[in-house]
């Protein structure tokens, strides 16, 4: 069994390098051709000061030289350069200090989504057509249709301003995790519940489930032992990008709740034209997504032997 996985993983990891490189190249030139530079703010510098600043950050070189230099530093030293906005701070260090908060937030949100989404979906499918099912469907549709800033504002208005249970913002104590995690996790929770429901219903209609019933296997055993396992594949397929999005796509939640994560940095870096920081965060995001997709394919291969062949093809 296991022997196909290693070459497959290696191949995919190698394939990720050109993808990331193309991404980096595109972003690099897009940023440079966008109007506005990192140092043109309200303050106008004298010509010689401006030249000195540009020389300090290598901005006086032709663009292609800057590009090659950036690639060289990245490949040889794994160095993403120095922030243009925060003097003297390296991008590596800034990302390193922001990433844990984003990962914690995203991880907790994913956990929250699965913890509630899986049972809700299974229950709805198992009791298909009853009020439980209808309730679950509407809950899921509502969860998918709620923009996170509306969730955030409702939660903050009620639970922190009205009841005073949780802090409305900041990232200091475990209690301050609660509202951001619910805000971020609600949409994946709804997506998971919906997918699990659809998937379990489809599996329960399969021939081998009827066979199991006919053989006299108890209903709960059919559900948990036979159906659930096979229902998980479409869920896992969606889970990968979803998980990566939770870590990377939390910029709005981070902004609203003032969480010192990657998303907050990213927005301000783009607005400030902090080129090295934008490049760094983009690469981390991209790598996360590629890794998540790889893990999904590996997990699917383990759950369903038929998928292994497809994996070998690509």
């Amino acid at each position, binding site marked *: 069994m296991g022997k196909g996985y290693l070459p497959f993983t290696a191949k995919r990891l190698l394939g990720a390098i050109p993808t990331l490189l*193309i991404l980096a190249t595109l972003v690099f030139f897009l940023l440079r051709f966008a109007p506005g530079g990192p140092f043109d703010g309200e303050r106008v510098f004298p010509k010689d000061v401006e030249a000195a600043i540009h020389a300090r950050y290598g901005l006086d070189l032709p663009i292609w030289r800057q590009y090659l230099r950036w690639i060289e530093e990245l490949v040889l030293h794994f160095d993403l350069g120095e922030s243009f906005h925060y003097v003297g701070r390296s991008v590596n260090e800034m990302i390193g200090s922001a990433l844990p908060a984003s990962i914690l937030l995203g991880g907790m949100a994913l956990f929250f989504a699965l913890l509630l989404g899986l049972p809700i979906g299974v229950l709805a499918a198992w009791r298909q057509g009853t009020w439980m099912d209808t309730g679950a469907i509407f809950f899921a549709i509502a969860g998918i*249709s709620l923009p996170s800033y509306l969730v955030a*504002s409702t939660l903050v208005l009620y639970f922190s301003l009205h009841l005073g249970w949780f802090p409305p913002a900041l990232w200091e104590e475990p209690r301050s995790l609660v509202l951001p995690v619910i805000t971020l996790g609600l949409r994946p929770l709804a997506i998971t519940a919906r997918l699990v429901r659809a998937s379990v219903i489809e599996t329960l209609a399969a021939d081998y489930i009827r066979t199991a019933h006919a053989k006299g296997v108890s209903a709960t055993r059919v559900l948990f032992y036979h159906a659930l396992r096979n229902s998980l594949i479409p869920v896992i397929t969606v889970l990968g990008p979803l998980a990566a999005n939770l870590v990377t796509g939390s*910029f709005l939640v981070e902004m609203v709740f003032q969480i010192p994560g990657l998303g907050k940095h990213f927005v301000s870096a783009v607005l400030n034209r902090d080129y090295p920081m934008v490049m760094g965060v983009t690469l981390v995001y991209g790598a996360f997504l590629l890794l998540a997709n790889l893990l999904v394919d590996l997990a699917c291969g383990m759950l369903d032997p038929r998928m292994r062949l497809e994996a070998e093809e690509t």
Partner: protein
Amino acid sequence: MRSALVSFIFLFVVSLGAVFAPLLTHQSYETQNIEEKLETPSAQHWMGTDTLGRDLYSRVVYGARMSLAVGVLTALLSLSLGTLVGAVAGFRGGKIDAALMRVTDVFSIFPSLLVAILLTVFLGRGFLGILVAISLTSWVVHARLVRNLVRQAKEMLYIESARALGVANTRIVVRHILPNILGPMIVSLTLQIPTNIMSESFLSFIGLGLEPPYSSWGTLANEGFRAMKSFPHLILYPGAILFITLVAFNLLGDGVRDALDPMGKRDFGA
């Protein structure tokens, strides 16, 4: 099915309201009246007034134009682009397929927020920038979907017959393959609309949306969010109409899927 029908009627009414906005409102959406600012709902101002004394009801009705137009247009644009890329990749196969799929891979890991911010810098904050930004970040799903559908369809016997008759490739794709995979494409389109309306509202929310005095539901929610502690009605009304509209689109999409695809086969995209 009934919920899909109700959703359709609701969306139809909202769209009519957006088109005939001037007839539905008796006050301008941009006239400021500082004397009447931040009023709670009354007979004069059905949803109250905002921080500049503008009538919130008028702003919500005019906001529908922006939100719906962006949602529908970007969904159409991204489906067209995705179909073009997906159909060529799926039909041609080989090196062209590999190259196009590499492009798709790169776009799928491109942070959409970055694209959006940069494009609004290039094209200015406004309708066009938002349109291009959302379309450019949402076509990937459609490209993958269409590619897979085309790959399946081109193995069919009727395509082989068409080839044997000497029908040109473009004609095979346009006349024979695409009509046969239209069902899943329509479902994909319907479900893309609410996603894109939400994307627009996110962009507006973080301040990259339309310039005042124009409004979308997202810009209104953004304005409301800042004042929500003291004046919750400012976020309540635009938020509620946005939420109900998105629910309606999602229910409609589900209904269309059930109707077009009775086997319940779903394609989850990526």
